[in-house]
Protein backbone atom coordinates (compact mmCIF):
# COMPACT_ATOMS: atom_id res chain seq x y z
CA UNK A 1 0.00 0.00 0.00
CA UNK A 2 1.40 3.38 -0.96
CA UNK A 3 2.24 5.75 1.86
CA UNK A 4 1.20 9.37 2.02
CA UNK A 5 3.51 12.03 3.47
CA UNK A 6 2.63 13.02 7.04
CA UNK A 7 4.25 16.37 7.78
CA UNK A 8 4.97 17.14 11.41
CA UNK A 9 3.78 20.59 12.39
CA UNK A 10 5.85 22.49 14.92
CA UNK A 11 3.75 25.20 16.50
CA UNK A 12 4.63 27.87 19.01
CA UNK A 13 5.48 30.87 16.91
CA UNK A 14 2.78 33.49 16.66
CA UNK A 15 3.98 35.29 13.54
CA UNK A 16 5.54 34.27 10.21
CA UNK A 17 8.64 32.09 10.30
CA UNK A 18 11.17 33.77 8.02
CA UNK A 19 14.36 31.78 8.44
CA UNK A 20 15.50 28.43 9.76
CA UNK A 21 18.81 26.63 10.09
CA UNK A 22 20.06 23.21 11.16
CA UNK A 23 23.19 22.57 13.16
CA UNK A 24 25.67 19.90 12.20
CA UNK A 25 25.32 16.38 13.54
CA UNK A 26 26.41 16.32 17.18
CA UNK A 27 26.63 13.44 19.67
CA UNK A 28 23.23 14.64 20.88
CA UNK A 29 21.68 14.54 17.43
CA UNK A 30 21.11 17.69 15.40
CA UNK A 31 19.16 20.83 16.11
CA UNK A 32 17.01 23.37 14.36
CA UNK A 33 16.62 27.09 15.02
CA UNK A 34 13.78 29.17 13.64
CA UNK A 35 13.65 32.94 13.17
CA UNK A 36 10.26 34.54 13.52
CA UNK A 37 8.70 37.96 13.22
CA UNK A 38 7.42 37.54 16.78
CA UNK A 39 10.99 38.25 17.94
CA UNK A 40 11.35 34.93 19.77
CA UNK A 41 13.61 32.49 17.92
CA UNK A 42 13.20 28.90 19.03
CA UNK A 43 15.55 25.97 19.29
CA UNK A 44 14.18 22.53 18.48
CA UNK A 45 15.45 18.99 18.37
CA UNK A 46 16.15 18.52 14.66
CA UNK A 47 14.80 15.03 14.08
CA UNK A 48 11.58 15.34 16.06
CA UNK A 49 10.77 19.04 16.03
CA UNK A 50 10.39 19.00 19.82
CA UNK A 51 10.77 22.45 21.31
CA UNK A 52 13.84 22.82 23.49
CA UNK A 53 13.81 26.51 24.31
CA UNK A 54 13.12 30.07 23.20
CA UNK A 55 15.83 32.73 23.01
CA UNK A 56 14.33 35.75 24.75
CA UNK A 57 15.81 39.19 24.38
CA UNK A 58 15.23 40.67 20.95
CA UNK A 59 12.91 43.63 20.77
CA UNK A 60 11.89 43.25 17.17
CA UNK A 61 11.27 40.73 14.43
CA UNK A 62 14.08 38.20 14.06
CA UNK A 63 15.02 37.95 10.40
CA UNK A 64 17.89 35.49 10.51
CA UNK A 65 19.00 32.71 12.79
CA UNK A 66 21.79 30.19 12.72
CA UNK A 67 23.52 27.58 14.87
CA UNK A 68 27.18 26.76 14.98
CA UNK A 69 28.28 23.31 13.88
CA UNK A 70 28.09 21.59 17.26
CA UNK A 71 24.95 23.49 18.31
CA UNK A 72 26.61 25.06 21.33
CA UNK A 73 26.00 28.59 20.09
CA UNK A 74 23.21 30.33 18.26
CA UNK A 75 23.17 33.69 16.51
CA UNK A 76 20.20 35.80 15.51
CA UNK A 77 19.69 38.91 13.38
CA UNK A 78 16.82 41.23 14.19
CA UNK A 79 14.89 44.33 13.31
CA UNK A 80 15.94 45.90 16.60
CA UNK A 81 19.27 46.76 14.88
CA UNK A 82 21.16 44.07 16.77
CA UNK A 83 22.59 40.66 16.19
CA UNK A 84 22.83 38.48 19.27
CA UNK A 85 24.96 35.47 20.11
CA UNK A 86 23.44 32.94 22.49
CA UNK A 87 24.52 29.93 24.48
CA UNK A 88 22.43 27.26 22.79
CA UNK A 89 22.63 24.91 25.75
CA UNK A 90 21.44 27.27 28.47
CA UNK A 91 19.52 29.76 26.31
CA UNK A 92 21.45 32.68 27.81
CA UNK A 93 22.35 35.71 25.76
CA UNK A 94 26.12 35.95 25.37
CA UNK A 95 26.59 39.04 23.22
CA UNK A 96 24.60 41.85 21.71
CA UNK A 97 26.21 43.35 18.61
CA UNK A 98 24.83 46.77 17.79
CA UNK A 99 24.28 47.71 14.15
CA UNK A 100 23.07 50.83 12.40
CA UNK A 101 20.03 49.30 10.79
CA UNK A 102 17.96 46.09 10.61
CA UNK A 103 20.18 43.03 10.63
CA UNK A 104 19.05 40.29 8.27
CA UNK A 105 21.62 37.53 8.26
CA UNK A 106 24.19 35.87 10.53
CA UNK A 107 26.67 33.03 9.95
CA UNK A 108 29.34 31.37 12.13
CA UNK A 109 32.69 30.20 10.78
CA UNK A 110 33.37 26.45 11.10
CA UNK A 111 35.41 27.01 14.26
CA UNK A 112 32.78 29.39 15.72
CA UNK A 113 35.41 32.06 16.23
CA UNK A 114 33.90 34.62 13.88
CA UNK A 115 30.40 35.80 13.12
CA UNK A 116 29.44 37.35 9.80
CA UNK A 117 26.47 39.73 9.76
CA UNK A 118 24.68 41.67 7.07
CA UNK A 119 21.61 43.82 6.85
CA UNK A 120 19.90 46.93 5.67
CA UNK A 121 22.91 49.16 6.25
CA UNK A 122 24.50 47.36 3.25
CA UNK A 123 27.65 46.47 5.17
CA UNK A 124 29.09 43.06 5.86
CA UNK A 125 30.57 42.85 9.34
CA UNK A 126 32.94 40.26 10.76
CA UNK A 127 33.00 39.98 14.53
CA UNK A 128 35.74 38.20 16.43
CA UNK A 129 33.71 36.34 19.05
CA UNK A 130 36.75 35.98 21.28
CA UNK A 131 37.07 39.77 21.41
CA UNK A 132 33.48 41.01 21.74
CA UNK A 133 34.56 44.53 22.64
CA UNK A 134 36.62 44.96 19.48
CA UNK A 135 35.12 46.77 16.52
CA UNK A 136 34.08 44.43 13.69
CA UNK A 137 35.80 44.46 10.34
CA UNK A 138 33.50 45.98 7.74
CA UNK A 139 33.16 45.25 4.04
CA UNK A 140 31.26 47.72 1.93
CA UNK A 141 30.21 47.54 -1.68
CA UNK A 142 26.61 46.41 -1.72
CA UNK A 143 24.23 49.00 -3.10
CA UNK A 144 21.09 47.56 -1.53
CA UNK A 145 20.27 45.83 1.73
CA UNK A 146 22.04 42.53 2.31
CA UNK A 147 19.65 39.61 2.59
CA UNK A 148 22.02 36.72 3.13
CA UNK A 149 25.72 36.39 3.92
CA UNK A 150 27.58 33.11 4.20
CA UNK A 151 31.11 31.92 4.80
CA UNK A 152 32.41 29.62 2.08
CA UNK A 153 35.55 27.85 0.87
CA UNK A 154 36.52 26.89 4.42
CA UNK A 155 35.80 30.40 5.65
CA UNK A 156 38.38 31.91 3.30
CA UNK A 157 35.66 33.60 1.27
CA UNK A 158 32.30 35.23 1.84
CA UNK A 159 29.18 35.03 -0.31
CA UNK A 160 26.58 37.73 0.08
CA UNK A 161 23.30 38.49 -1.64
CA UNK A 162 21.47 41.76 -1.84
CA UNK A 163 18.38 42.50 -3.87
CA UNK A 164 19.81 41.95 -7.35
CA UNK A 165 23.39 40.76 -6.91
CA UNK A 166 25.35 37.93 -5.39
CA UNK A 167 28.95 38.80 -4.54
CA UNK A 168 32.00 36.76 -3.64
CA UNK A 169 34.57 38.35 -1.33
CA UNK A 170 38.00 37.31 -0.20
CA UNK A 171 38.12 37.20 3.61
CA UNK A 172 41.78 38.05 4.03
CA UNK A 173 41.86 41.06 1.72
CA UNK A 174 38.20 42.04 2.29
CA UNK A 175 37.80 42.76 -1.41
CA UNK A 176 35.28 41.67 -3.98
CA UNK A 177 36.39 38.77 -6.16
CA UNK A 178 33.37 38.35 -8.41
CA UNK A 179 29.71 39.21 -8.68
CA UNK A 180 26.55 37.97 -10.36
CA UNK A 181 23.75 40.23 -11.48
CA UNK A 182 20.10 39.28 -11.65
CA UNK A 183 17.19 41.19 -13.10
CA UNK A 184 14.87 39.71 -10.48
CA UNK A 185 15.08 39.93 -6.73
CA UNK A 186 17.20 37.17 -5.17
CA UNK A 187 15.04 35.48 -2.56
CA UNK A 188 17.45 33.01 -0.98
CA UNK A 189 20.89 31.50 -1.03
CA UNK A 190 22.31 28.24 0.33
CA UNK A 191 25.91 27.11 0.33
CA UNK A 192 26.85 23.39 0.10
CA UNK A 193 30.49 22.95 1.19
CA UNK A 194 30.89 19.46 -0.28
CA UNK A 195 31.09 20.22 -3.93
CA UNK A 196 31.21 24.01 -3.42
CA UNK A 197 27.69 24.52 -4.76
CA UNK A 198 25.64 27.67 -4.33
CA UNK A 199 21.84 27.43 -4.54
CA UNK A 200 20.16 30.71 -5.48
CA UNK A 201 16.46 31.36 -5.92
CA UNK A 202 14.92 34.28 -7.79
CA UNK A 203 11.49 34.57 -9.37
CA UNK A 204 10.44 31.04 -10.24
CA UNK A 205 14.01 29.93 -10.82
CA UNK A 206 16.15 27.65 -8.69
CA UNK A 207 19.73 28.10 -9.87
CA UNK A 208 22.92 26.22 -9.01
CA UNK A 209 26.29 27.93 -9.32
CA UNK A 210 29.83 27.08 -8.42
CA UNK A 211 30.60 28.75 -5.10
CA UNK A 212 34.21 29.21 -6.17
CA UNK A 213 33.78 30.77 -9.60
CA UNK A 214 30.08 31.71 -9.46
CA UNK A 215 29.72 30.03 -12.87
CA UNK A 216 26.26 28.61 -13.47
CA UNK A 217 25.85 24.84 -13.26
CA UNK A 218 22.15 24.40 -13.97
CA UNK A 219 18.76 25.86 -13.13
CA UNK A 220 15.13 24.75 -12.90
CA UNK A 221 11.85 26.61 -13.17
CA UNK A 222 9.11 26.01 -10.64
CA UNK A 223 5.36 26.52 -11.19
CA UNK A 224 5.31 29.47 -8.78
CA UNK A 225 7.57 32.15 -7.29
CA UNK A 226 10.09 30.39 -5.08
CA UNK A 227 11.32 31.91 -1.85
CA UNK A 228 13.76 29.25 -0.74
CA UNK A 229 15.35 26.01 -1.92
CA UNK A 230 17.69 23.43 -0.46
CA UNK A 231 19.90 20.76 -1.98
CA UNK A 232 20.06 17.31 -0.40
CA UNK A 233 23.48 16.45 1.12
CA UNK A 234 23.90 13.61 -1.36
CA UNK A 235 22.79 15.90 -4.16
CA UNK A 236 20.06 13.60 -5.37
CA UNK A 237 17.14 15.88 -4.61
CA UNK A 238 16.31 19.46 -4.00
CA UNK A 239 13.28 20.93 -2.31
CA UNK A 240 11.79 24.35 -2.87
CA UNK A 241 8.87 26.34 -1.56
CA UNK A 242 7.34 29.72 -2.24
CA UNK A 243 4.29 31.79 -2.85
CA UNK A 244 1.82 29.05 -3.76
CA UNK A 245 2.15 27.52 -0.26
CA UNK A 246 3.42 24.25 -1.75
CA UNK A 247 6.67 22.36 -1.33
CA UNK A 248 8.25 20.87 -4.42
CA UNK A 249 10.80 18.08 -4.55
CA UNK A 250 12.91 17.69 -7.69
CA UNK A 251 15.44 15.19 -8.92
CA UNK A 252 18.67 17.24 -9.01
CA UNK A 253 20.13 15.34 -11.95
CA UNK A 254 17.14 15.32 -14.26
CA UNK A 255 15.16 18.30 -13.00
CA UNK A 256 12.04 16.15 -12.89
CA UNK A 257 9.45 17.18 -10.34
CA UNK A 258 9.09 14.15 -8.07
CA UNK A 259 6.64 15.22 -5.38
CA UNK A 260 4.72 18.25 -4.27
CA UNK A 261 2.93 18.86 -1.02
CA UNK A 262 0.26 21.19 0.17
CA UNK A 263 -0.01 21.74 3.89
CA UNK A 264 1.09 25.23 4.78
CA UNK A 265 -1.52 27.94 5.03
CA UNK A 266 0.72 30.68 3.78
CA UNK A 267 3.74 31.30 1.57
CA UNK A 268 6.81 29.30 2.44
CA UNK A 269 9.73 31.52 3.39
CA UNK A 270 12.49 29.02 4.08
CA UNK A 271 13.23 25.38 3.50
CA UNK A 272 16.28 23.34 4.48
CA UNK A 273 17.40 19.74 4.43
CA UNK A 274 18.58 18.25 7.71
CA UNK A 275 22.30 17.47 7.86
CA UNK A 276 21.63 13.74 7.41
CA UNK A 277 19.22 14.40 4.55
CA UNK A 278 16.46 12.30 6.11
CA UNK A 279 14.03 15.17 6.44
CA UNK A 280 13.53 18.77 5.39
CA UNK A 281 11.98 21.61 7.34
CA UNK A 282 9.86 24.44 5.95
CA UNK A 283 8.95 27.72 7.62
CA UNK A 284 5.91 29.67 6.54
CA UNK A 285 3.95 32.88 6.78
CA UNK A 286 1.39 30.79 8.68
CA UNK A 287 3.69 30.77 11.72
CA UNK A 288 4.50 27.07 11.64
CA UNK A 289 7.46 24.92 10.79
CA UNK A 290 6.79 21.60 9.17
CA UNK A 291 9.08 18.61 8.97
CA UNK A 292 8.78 16.41 5.89
CA UNK A 293 10.27 13.01 5.18
CA UNK A 294 12.71 12.74 2.30
CA UNK A 295 11.76 9.10 1.85
CA UNK A 296 8.07 8.84 2.62
CA UNK A 297 7.24 5.86 4.79
CA UNK A 298 10.69 5.35 6.28
CA UNK A 299 10.92 4.88 10.03
CA UNK A 300 12.78 7.92 11.34
CA UNK A 301 12.30 10.39 14.16
CA UNK A 302 8.61 10.48 14.97
CA UNK A 303 7.59 8.69 11.78
CA UNK A 304 7.03 5.02 12.45
CA UNK A 305 6.38 2.83 9.47
CA UNK A 306 4.10 -0.03 10.41
CA UNK A 307 4.32 -2.90 7.95
CA UNK A 308 1.22 -5.13 7.56
CA UNK A 309 2.84 -8.21 9.21
CA UNK A 310 4.05 -6.44 12.33
CA UNK A 311 1.06 -4.16 12.55
CA UNK A 312 -0.01 -4.10 16.17
CA UNK A 313 -2.56 -1.55 15.09
CA UNK A 314 -1.76 0.81 17.90
CA UNK A 315 0.21 3.38 16.07
CA UNK A 316 -1.57 3.47 12.75
CA UNK A 317 -5.07 3.88 14.11
CA UNK A 318 -6.27 4.85 17.58
CA UNK A 319 -7.60 1.90 19.55
CA UNK A 320 -10.32 3.80 21.37
CA UNK A 321 -13.65 3.76 19.64
CA UNK A 322 -14.57 7.21 18.55
CA UNK A 323 -18.34 6.91 18.25
CA UNK A 324 -18.79 10.02 16.16
CA UNK A 325 -15.93 9.64 13.74
CA UNK A 326 -15.70 6.89 11.17
CA UNK A 327 -12.44 5.54 9.86
CA UNK A 328 -12.83 7.62 6.70
CA UNK A 329 -13.26 10.79 8.67
CA UNK A 330 -10.20 9.98 10.73
CA UNK A 331 -8.26 9.44 7.51
CA UNK A 332 -9.47 12.78 6.22
CA UNK A 333 -8.36 14.52 9.38
CA UNK A 334 -5.05 12.71 9.18
CA UNK A 335 -4.41 13.66 5.58
CA UNK A 336 -2.77 16.96 4.86
CA UNK A 337 -2.78 18.38 8.33
CA UNK A 338 -2.64 15.09 10.17
CA UNK A 339 -2.62 16.89 13.48
CA UNK A 340 -5.89 16.00 15.05
CA UNK A 341 -6.22 12.34 15.89
CA UNK A 342 -2.99 11.64 17.70
CA UNK A 343 -2.98 12.48 21.36
CA UNK A 344 -0.26 14.73 22.59
CA UNK A 345 2.07 14.08 25.48
CA UNK A 346 0.75 14.39 29.01
CA UNK A 347 2.84 17.38 29.93
CA UNK A 348 0.89 19.65 27.62
CA UNK A 349 -1.28 21.70 29.90
CA UNK A 350 -5.00 21.27 29.32
Amino acid at each position, binding site marked *: *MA*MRQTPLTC*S*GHTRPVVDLAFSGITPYGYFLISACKDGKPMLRQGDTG*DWIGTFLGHKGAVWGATLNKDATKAATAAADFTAKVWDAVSGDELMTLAHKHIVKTVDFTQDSNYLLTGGQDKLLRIYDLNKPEAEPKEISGHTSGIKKALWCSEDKQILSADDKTVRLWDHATMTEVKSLNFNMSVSSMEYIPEGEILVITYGRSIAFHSAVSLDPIKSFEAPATINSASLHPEKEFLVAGGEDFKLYKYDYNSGEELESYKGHFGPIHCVRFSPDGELYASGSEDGTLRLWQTVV*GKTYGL*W*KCVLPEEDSGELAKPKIGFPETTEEEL*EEIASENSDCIYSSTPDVK*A
Partner: protein
Amino acid sequence: MQTPVTIPVPVLRLPRGPDGFSRGFAPDGRRAPLKPEVPQIQECPIAQESLESQEQQARAALRERYLRSLLAMVGRQVSFTLHESVHVAAHFGATDLDVANFYVSQLQTPIGVQAEALLRCSDIISYTFKP
Protein backbone atom coordinates in the same frame (compact mmCIF):
# COMPACT_ATOMS: atom_id res chain seq x y z
CA MET B 1 -10.22 11.45 -9.31
CA GLN B 2 -7.74 8.70 -9.92
CA THR B 3 -5.58 9.02 -6.84
CA PRO B 4 -4.30 5.64 -5.68
CA VAL B 5 -5.39 4.47 -2.24
CA THR B 6 -2.76 5.68 0.20
CA ILE B 7 -2.45 5.64 3.93
CA PRO B 8 -0.71 8.46 5.76
CA VAL B 9 2.63 7.56 7.35
CA PRO B 10 1.88 6.85 11.03
CA VAL B 11 3.58 8.99 13.64
CA LEU B 12 4.40 8.21 17.24
CA ARG B 13 3.19 11.62 18.38
CA LEU B 14 3.28 15.27 17.38
CA PRO B 15 6.32 17.43 18.03
CA ARG B 16 6.15 18.95 21.49
CA GLY B 17 5.48 22.66 21.56
CA PRO B 18 6.56 25.33 24.05
CA ASP B 19 5.34 24.78 27.58
CA GLY B 20 3.83 28.25 27.74
CA PHE B 21 5.40 29.32 31.01
CA SER B 22 9.16 29.05 30.70
CA ARG B 23 11.79 29.72 28.09
CA GLY B 24 12.85 26.07 28.14
CA PHE B 25 16.45 24.78 27.97
CA ALA B 26 15.83 22.29 30.81
CA PRO B 27 19.11 21.74 32.66
CA ASP B 28 18.85 17.95 32.53
CA GLY B 29 17.45 18.08 29.04
CA ARG B 30 19.02 17.31 25.75
CA ARG B 31 22.66 17.42 26.75
CA ALA B 32 22.51 14.96 29.61
CA PRO B 33 21.92 11.53 28.07
CA LEU B 34 23.93 10.76 24.98
CA LYS B 35 21.87 9.15 22.24
CA PRO B 36 22.17 5.35 22.41
CA GLU B 37 23.73 3.66 19.39
CA VAL B 38 20.90 1.26 18.70
CA PRO B 39 17.34 2.54 18.45
CA GLN B 40 15.36 0.98 21.24
CA ILE B 41 11.95 0.97 19.66
CA GLN B 42 11.58 -2.79 19.26
CA GLU B 43 12.77 -4.25 22.53
CA CYS B 44 10.07 -3.47 25.14
CA PRO B 45 8.93 -6.39 27.31
CA ILE B 46 5.29 -7.26 26.80
CA ALA B 47 4.05 -6.24 30.26
CA GLN B 48 5.64 -2.84 30.10
CA GLU B 49 4.27 -2.33 26.63
CA SER B 50 0.70 -3.07 27.65
CA LEU B 51 0.96 -0.77 30.68
CA GLU B 52 2.32 1.94 28.44
CA SER B 53 -0.37 1.33 25.86
CA GLN B 54 -3.04 1.52 28.55
CA GLU B 55 -1.62 4.82 29.70
CA GLN B 56 -1.48 6.02 26.13
CA GLN B 57 -5.09 5.07 25.57
CA ALA B 58 -6.08 6.89 28.72
CA ARG B 59 -4.16 9.95 27.63
CA ALA B 60 -5.79 9.81 24.23
CA ALA B 61 -9.26 9.50 25.74
CA LEU B 62 -8.70 12.40 28.12
CA ARG B 63 -7.22 14.54 25.39
CA GLU B 64 -10.16 13.80 23.12
CA ARG B 65 -12.57 14.70 25.89
CA TYR B 66 -10.79 17.99 26.47
CA LEU B 67 -10.77 18.89 22.80
CA ARG B 68 -14.48 18.15 22.56
CA SER B 69 -15.07 20.38 25.55
CA LEU B 70 -13.30 23.18 23.70
CA LEU B 71 -15.49 22.57 20.66
CA ALA B 72 -18.59 22.68 22.84
CA MET B 73 -17.48 26.03 24.19
CA VAL B 74 -17.38 27.78 20.84
CA GLY B 75 -19.78 30.71 20.70
CA ARG B 76 -20.76 30.39 24.35
CA GLN B 77 -20.38 32.80 27.21
CA VAL B 78 -17.46 31.67 29.36
CA SER B 79 -16.39 33.01 32.75
CA PHE B 80 -12.65 33.08 33.35
CA THR B 81 -10.88 33.31 36.68
CA LEU B 82 -7.51 34.93 36.17
CA HIS B 83 -4.65 35.70 38.52
CA GLU B 84 -5.16 38.11 41.43
CA SER B 85 -8.84 37.27 41.70
CA VAL B 86 -9.69 38.89 38.40
CA HIS B 87 -12.85 37.59 36.79
CA VAL B 88 -13.76 38.24 33.20
CA ALA B 89 -16.42 36.88 30.89
CA ALA B 90 -16.37 36.54 27.13
CA HIS B 91 -17.68 34.64 24.14
CA PHE B 92 -15.25 31.87 23.39
CA GLY B 93 -14.00 31.73 19.80
CA ALA B 94 -11.09 29.38 19.41
CA THR B 95 -7.79 28.20 20.76
CA ASP B 96 -4.46 27.72 19.01
CA LEU B 97 -2.73 24.39 18.45
CA ASP B 98 -0.88 24.29 21.76
CA VAL B 99 -3.80 25.73 23.72
CA ALA B 100 -1.57 28.64 24.62
CA ASN B 101 -4.05 31.36 23.74
CA PHE B 102 -7.84 31.63 23.71
CA TYR B 103 -9.38 33.84 21.08
CA VAL B 104 -12.45 35.49 22.58
CA SER B 105 -14.88 38.25 21.68
CA GLN B 106 -16.92 40.70 23.76
CA LEU B 107 -14.51 40.36 26.65
CA GLN B 108 -16.02 42.05 29.69
CA THR B 109 -13.23 43.51 31.75
CA PRO B 110 -13.25 45.86 34.74
CA ILE B 111 -12.20 48.63 32.39
CA GLY B 112 -14.71 48.03 29.65
CA VAL B 113 -15.77 45.61 26.95
CA GLN B 114 -13.12 44.50 24.42
CA ALA B 115 -14.62 43.49 21.09
CA GLU B 116 -11.89 40.93 20.29
CA ALA B 117 -9.09 39.68 22.49
CA LEU B 118 -6.54 36.96 23.01
CA LEU B 119 -6.37 35.52 26.49
CA ARG B 120 -3.06 33.93 27.38
CA CYS B 121 -3.78 30.54 28.86
CA SER B 122 -0.94 30.87 31.31
CA ASP B 123 -2.93 33.77 32.81
CA ILE B 124 -6.05 31.67 33.29
CA ILE B 125 -6.57 29.76 36.51
CA SER B 126 -9.95 28.29 35.64
CA TYR B 127 -12.92 28.82 33.40
CA THR B 128 -16.49 27.70 33.44
CA PHE B 129 -19.41 27.71 31.06
CA LYS B 130 -22.86 26.21 30.68
CA PRO B 131 -23.24 24.17 27.48
